[in-house]
């Protein structure tokens, strides 16, 4: 976690843009939350069927952050996606759902609740990013 799934029409977002979105999402998430970069997952899911909007951001985060942080995070992520891909606001919607951190184990450690991260957890995340 976090896990950001970008649902996009088939063949609509080339690799260079996907890589740029992934980097931007990582920068934004870490800038907003302080999480280690190695914990940010971004995937692109090409679909044939249309959703309510042609492009959709389905994010999953640890529960426990303030409404202000969550709103800013979603706004920043969606803004970066639109800027990189050229997709309009009308074509793009998104949400971030949350789940208890303790339900997930990553890097061999149960995820801490937001605000309860330890030095050991940060150190492990940095080591994973460099490895």
């Amino acid at each position, binding site marked *: 976690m976090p896990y950001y799934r970008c649902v996009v029409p088939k063949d609509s977002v080339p690799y260079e843009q996907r890589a740029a979105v992934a980097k931007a999402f990582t920068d934004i998430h870490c800038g907003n939350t302080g999480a280690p*970069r190695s914990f*940010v997952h971004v995937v692109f899911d090409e679909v044939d069927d249309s959703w309510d909007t042609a492009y959709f951001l389905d994010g999953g985060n640890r529960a426990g952050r303030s409404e202000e942080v969550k709103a800013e995070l979603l706004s920043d992520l969606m803004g970066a996606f639109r800027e990189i891909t050229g997709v309009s606001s009308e074509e793009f919607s998104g949400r971030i759902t949350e789940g208890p951190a*303790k339900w997930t*184990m990553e890097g061999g450690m149960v995820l801490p609740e937001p605000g309860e991260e330890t030095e050991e957890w940060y150190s492990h995340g940095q080591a994973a*990013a460099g490895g």
Partner: protein
Amino acid sequence: MSRVSFNCTMQEGQVGEEMRARLAVALQQITQDVLGESPDDVPVTFSDIPRGFGFRGGEPSTTSLVRGSIVGGITQDVREDFMRRICDRWMEISGCTVDELVVSARDA
């Protein structure tokens, strides 16, 4: 309806069919050992993220995600034991490192 089910997502080309079969059996066995469920009642599905479509830390990802769903829920002590066993066994079979695996066990 099954009480426990798994959805496993891997990066394309990293886990072959033979290994998937072994991983599925391992997940079912761990579920039986920890939660007492019959292996036949534990569905395991696999899906691939195509190359160039999965990223971690802004770079191409080599990470697999194992998502378990448990109807009725379990205590946190049991959950941690469950996730730890899955983590250890998955690494043993697949050869991945601890940093290439995310395991979740969610109450449903």
